[in-house]
């Protein structure tokens, strides 16, 4: 008889989820699913609010990446005002996003995922966490925590608080960078660089040991999407969207965020609160694409900073895109390096200390789409307002959601390799979870939506017949 193994909850991710693994008569994995079990409702309850409030409200979607929402929302707001923000405001927003990328990637790598590589996928689950890491390698753990703190402090210097600063507003930003903050960020950069270098070298060494994992953790061809800047440079705030395929052929370029509905579709499955976006021209599920660090490194032509460019050329396979989701980890570290190099450049930019921060305008457009690259991938905020600026429609397309199809494929791929029959070692199940951790999913973000979502449990026999359905 067919059986189902459940991993609930999935640990060391942001949010709540479970994984179901379906077994056939022989006890072989027939399928696996990643269910997102939390539910929010932001798109609905924001209706009627003035759009000026949206950066502050949507920041509350997430405590890990509030900045991504603040920025995408402020950009959507810029569109409603129909203003071009000042160079200072733009550079300050970019600086904050780089702080955000640094802190979030440091959290993902050091706090959440490194216990798997450094302590071992099969090590005791009781200590396979950041506390175990602190015990095993206190210096590395301390460095990781301090790197995250550095990113958080960049955010806090600008926004006044580490989480949920409603600092970017439609039309610009609220407060400038102080001379004291600039000096402190600058003084702390060398340590941040050093930590990132240590982590990169460590991860590259570990790749020899975890060759098998790297080979089967979500290693499949798919599309990749991300923002790119002028001349195809790595981008996180401005620029246009690009899709590449698994061989890094550009299949669509110079796409504007405001046209996202023409190239992104959203499918719904009854077994998850998370929608399944796909590249529309290829349909669902063939149009599966990945976003986030791996995707950004696959879509861009170069990083735009010397150290990160050197790492990128080492990272890239000769034959096209890097397709293993395990490599998200390395991509994350390269992005931290690039973020730090870019912060260094920005701090010396004459515009950064400017005091023209916020454009003032009324409602000039009734519809707008804002986009930013969140640590986990491309984030869209789409608003429609009435002539007085009250929201009539909100659609948020979240990075983790766009990786949903890929995460499900990853889970199934890992389960097929490691799970044999109902008696499964804990370390094997941890690998299935670790597959999800590659994407550093943020489920609090991705389940912001309101929609019809019946909860259903299917028990599926080996011949595909639904033998029992539990629904509510």
């Amino acid at each position, binding site marked *: 008889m067919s059986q189902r193994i459940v991993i609930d909850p999935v640990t060391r991710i942001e949010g709540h989820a479970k994984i179901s693994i379906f077994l056939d008569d022989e006890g072989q994995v027939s399928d696996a699913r990643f269910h997102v079990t939390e539910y929010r409702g932001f798109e609905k309850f924001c209706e*009627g*609010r*003035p759009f*000026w*409030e949206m*950066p*502050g*409200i949507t920041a*509350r979607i997430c405590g890990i990446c509030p900045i991504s929402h603040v920025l995408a929302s402020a950009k959507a707001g810029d569109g409603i005002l129909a203003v071009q923000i000042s160079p200072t405001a733009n550079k300050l927003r970019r600086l904050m996003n780089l702080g955000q990328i640094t802190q979030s990637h440091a959290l993902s790598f050091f706090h959440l995922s490194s216990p798997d590589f450094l302590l071992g996928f099969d090590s005791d689950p009781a200590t396979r966490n950041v506390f175990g890491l602190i015990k095993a390698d206190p210096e590395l753990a301390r460095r990781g925590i301090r790197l995250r703190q550095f990113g958080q402090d960049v955010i806090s210097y600008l926004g006044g608080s580490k989480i*949920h600063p*409603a600092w970017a*507003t*439609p*039309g610009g930003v*609220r407060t400038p960078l102080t001379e004291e903050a600039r000096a402190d960020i600058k003084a702390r950069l060398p340590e941040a660089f050093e930590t990132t270098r240590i982590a990169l070298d460590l991860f590259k060494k570990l790749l020899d040991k975890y060759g098998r994992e790297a080979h089967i953790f979500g290693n499949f061809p798919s599309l990749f999407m991300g923002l790119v800047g002028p001349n195809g440079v790595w981008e996180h705030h401005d620029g246009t969207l690009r899709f590449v395929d698994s061989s890094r052929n550009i299949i669509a370029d110079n796409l504007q965020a405001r046209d996202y509905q023409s190239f992104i579709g959203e499918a719904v499955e009854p077994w998850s609160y998370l929608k399944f976006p796909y590249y529309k021209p290829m349909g669902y599920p063939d149009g599966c694409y990945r976003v986030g660090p791996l995707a950004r490194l696959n879509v861009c032509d170069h990083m735009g900073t010397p150290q990160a460019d050197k790492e990128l050329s080492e990272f890239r396979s000769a034959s096209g895109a890097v397709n293993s989701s395990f490599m998200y980890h390395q991509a994350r570290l390269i992005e931290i390096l690039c973020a730090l190099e870019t912060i260094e450049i920005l701090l010396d930019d004459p515009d950064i200390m400017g005091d023209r921060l916020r454009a*003032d305008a*009324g409602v000039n457009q009734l519809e707008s789409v804002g986009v930013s690259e969140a640590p986990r991938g491309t984030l869209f905020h789409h608003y429609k307002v009435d002539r*007085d*600026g*009250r929201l009539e429609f909100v659609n948020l397309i979240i990075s983790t959601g766009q990786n949903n199809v890929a995460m499900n494929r990853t889970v199934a791929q890992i389960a097929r390799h490691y799970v044999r029959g109902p008696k499964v070692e804990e370390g094997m199940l941890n690998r299935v979870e670790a597959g999800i951790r590659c994407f550093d999913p943020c489920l609090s973000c991705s389940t912001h939506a309101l929609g019809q979502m019946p909860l259903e449990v299917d028990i599926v026999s080996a011949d595909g017949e639904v033998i029992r359905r539990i629904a509510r």
Partner: protein
Amino acid sequence: MAVKTLTIDDKPVSAREDQTILEAAREAGIGIPTLCQLSGVANLGACRLCLVEVAGVPKLLPACVTLVQEGMQVFTNTERLREYRKMIVELLFAERNHVCAVCVANGHCELQNLAIAVGMDHVRYSYRFPKLEVDTTHEKFGIDHNRCVLCARCVRVCDEIEGAHTWDIAGRGAKSHIISDMNVPWGSATSCTSCGKCVQACPTGAIFKLGATVAEQIKDRTRLDFIVTAREKKQWVG
């Protein structure tokens, strides 16, 4: 003018006969929490936060509209009053949709400060979650009825200081709400002079400058008092 002597919280106090218990208490350095009271405009007794106990009077009296009397024994901080005040603040929170975290007045809100002052750590009543509108039709300001506590400060400053009388209260009981002119959108209220006094007067984030984001709406209520003092005392005239 005759002077009355009384005790407030057992402290002997003297006050002019036209003074209220609230004024006498404040002069004596005794704090009584208030919400609808605003220096420069008439007292209304709407919020009931300043209720005090007076010896020999069975009911509680609002200190802002009760005049002092000879020999009065006033108690401002009894267990019973503390409990009622907390209850009033909880009811205010339960009545409409106050979401401090994303409010323009967060950190500068009199309702929020009161909740802290009375020790409100949770609300014992079911929230009503009424569906209320945000009016952003005015070119400079907005009013979010979700955050309104019906203190009528806006009504009074507009009427008594600006002399426009744009604001009023319509409806009864739980259906009471602030309206502009004859219940038209604020942007269409022809009596409004866009002076912004109601913005400064509003104790919460209900009336705000358009474009304000979280915690950005800081209000300066001393300006209202300043205008009234300047107008009445005319210290710079002649």
